């Protein structure tokens, strides 16, 4: 066990945890930030995507001890009122079916748009290929990313 201080969604949070614990389980078990989802545990499905210093990472394989002072943003901290352009575009296109993977999809999309304000179809395919949607909402996700790009 180790006491660590994390910078999460703009707040400093102290936790007492095995330093090998993946960030995902710290978020979900220790900090009750359950918007970030478990899907595979091996960085293959993207359900656990969060931003680490503005870059999309898979929190299920990232030991919390490796986070250090870096800023973590989860779906709960993406915007104050759920009005990030990506979230608004998701609602406009009514993207979700079951909804389970969508937090991860949104975090990947938001990171993409930060890097690339006008992504092409190929850019979107490349950035989003790590996020599985079992319900098959891919065509809507792509359309929503384009709408979000227009909003910015």
């Amino acid at each position, binding site marked *: 066990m180790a006491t660590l201080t994390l910078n999460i969604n703009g707040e400093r949070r102290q936790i007492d945890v095995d330093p090998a614990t993946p960030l995902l389980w710290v978020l979900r078990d220790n900090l009750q930030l359950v*918007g970030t989802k478990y899907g595979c545990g091996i960085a293959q499905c993207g359900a656990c995507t969060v931003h680490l210093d503005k870059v999309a990472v898979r929190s299920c394989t990232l030991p919390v001890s490796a986070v250090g002072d870096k800023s973590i943003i989860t779906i709960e901290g993406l915007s104050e009122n759920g009005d990030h352009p990506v979230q608004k575009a998701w609602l406009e296109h009514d993207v979700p079916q*079951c909804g389970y993977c969508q937090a991860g999809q949104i975090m990947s999309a938001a990171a993409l748009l930060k890097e690339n304000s006008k992504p092409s179809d190929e850019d979107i395919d490349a950035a989003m290929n790590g996020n599985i949607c079992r319900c098959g909402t891919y065509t809507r996700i792509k359309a929503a990313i384009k709408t979000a790009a227009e909003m910015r």
Partner: protein
Amino acid sequence: MSISNKSVGRRSFLKSSVTTSGGMVLGFSWLASCRPASKEEVLAMPEQWFDINAYLKIGDNGVVTIYTPNPEFGQNVKTSMPMIVAEELDVDWKKVLVEMAPYNAELYGFQFTGGSRGIASRWEGLRKAGASARHMLKEAAAQAWQVSADEIKTTEGVLTHEGSGNSATYGEMAAAAAQIPVPEEVELKEVSEFKIIGHSKKNVDGKDIVTGKPLFALDHQAEGMLISMIVQPPAFGLRLKSISNADAVKAMPGIKDVFSIKTYSEGQEKGGFDTNAFPELVAVVGNSTWEVMQAKKALKAEWEPFAAYSETINGWRGSSTVNIPAGLENTTDHKAQMEALAAKPGNVVRRDGNPEEAFENAANVIERTYSAPYLAHNCMEPVNSFAQVKDGKVFIAGPLQAPGMIEPIISARLGIPVEDIDIEMTRMGGGFGRRAYSHYMVEAALIAQHVDAPIKLMYTREDDMTNGIYRPTYQATYRAALDENNNLLAIHVKAGGVPESPLFANRFPAGAIENYLAEEWSIESNITIGAFRAPRSNFMAGAEQSFLDELAETMGQDPIQFRLDLLKRAIENPVGERNDYDAERYTGVLELVKEKSGWGQGDAELHRGVSAYFCHNSYAAHVLDLSIKNGMPVVEKVTCALDCGIVVNPDAAVNMAEGGIVDGVGNAFFGEMTFVDGMPQKNNFHQYRMIRMGEAPKKIEVHFVQNEIDPTGLGEPPFPPIFGAVANAMYRATGTRHYRQPFLKDQRLLG
């Protein structure tokens, strides 16, 4: 339209009115959670609520809460079912709050999500729930104003009486309406009067989903809650012999207990959804997910082969005996067994005319064999459940499709009466059939009982993928007899699988073929199978539609026209009497997809495949356009035509059809589970290839046949025919027919 109120739903209205009519319910803060948090969107809460019936209550300010009865797994019934109530209630959708109804079979009947039967089964009952409430509001106003209720009109939550100039909101009349007896008969709206049904409404949970609110069972928290995982046999055909190092594992950090559980008591009666390959498991319980994961990895158990056994299953179609063989099964053996059985006569399920003679006299016989592997559901939210057993009562919150099926099983196993079992139906992170088999709720309850604490049971992805309940592996051989002029004389289909046959003997092309023979066979297995989006149809459609495509080509006919000609025969002069499809509606979707896809005006770069199918009382046809880039097929566009009767929420219906199409393309290309010595050969997404963004169709267009037929299924019907559309388009692109799924088996793995 006037429908008697004496059939569906009558009992539940009466029941609820007896228990709650006139009961005043104060609006507490729990309602605040059901709407987005941003201020401009929050509806003002009423000071008082008035229960009208089990499906709705009206606040004194006119806000209406509608309870949606069936579990939600992404098919959007949580939005579309309340839309049906709101339509007949005649209320402004903006003033509607939606709440998931509690599980309560007495009030809500069969709260089941599956078989594409949600909207169809609730259509009349939900309309009556809204209409009878509207009737009670009108009666209340009529009494207050001393006028005839027939002269009162309603518009979006306002009652008006033209003659007297009176008007009142539903909120103002709610208290009085709650005292009005539930009507015997109600008037339902004409389809042409619909203002909500047929007009797209956004997902009521949309904002909560995109902001990461805790909607799923895996997000459930409780004071003192422990985390639990299971360790299951590594192969089908094995069972637990002993735990080797329980004490060492118990001593690991954060670990509370390690013990084995048995999901069923000795001799307990099982139903059709009680499939479970691993009825004895090791449970590991501890403080945190990570600690339990470490303990699970460290746990050592001995496994042993079990002997063959038989069990009686009391399923929907009555009681039957199922034989479970011993042994460690292999995919290669399954294939050899299937080939061997396919070569022998099967059980004849249907025979029209004289197919044997037709084949004997044929100038040309085409024979093709199609096969498909086992598939895992791979819901994104893995199997899990919260459970607490306290003071002789059980509380469970979990993802499940059929609470009414598991409640008696939990009751029998724990020895706790059903009245003391409370099941909360959480939003499911996917279902696809998997969550109709909710043995994990029994497991969760047993673990909670054993450790005497609230627990959350979570399967890892590996547990989930290797736990069984798979879509079975199937094989079908189609034969066609042609005369010297290439006229079709007969069709013969022989299909089977492990452990069930996929055959639907009375579906198209039965009824359109003079000489027709359908046979089936099956092979016993200890690998568990279960419903998977459009069971059996999800294989037969692809086989049948691929064969018809090849047959049309051999006969020198256009594939759509060939199907239309067969259907014409089925309309005008059907063969046999047990044809369980409507050939005219079938024709309708083919004609619509032909028109919308611009069939026959194709781009030379695009290779088009057509496919159509009937299942779950609905009709689906696809035209799939494919190109080849860097040696890989790219699905450029899918044009889809559907006839599922009245469409309640069009944009959500389109979303679900798109999902079915993407799911179908993915499984046609990649989906496969195999076994070596009983062990599933894939346990996570690095091995089990799922369709990803880059492989999804670039464009999907969905068109609905416009009619006023009561709604039929939608979640499943678009899925089965896509396999045929993919196969037929790939043939046009590559010149090679594809008979064995998955079609891109040997291609590179993404991840």
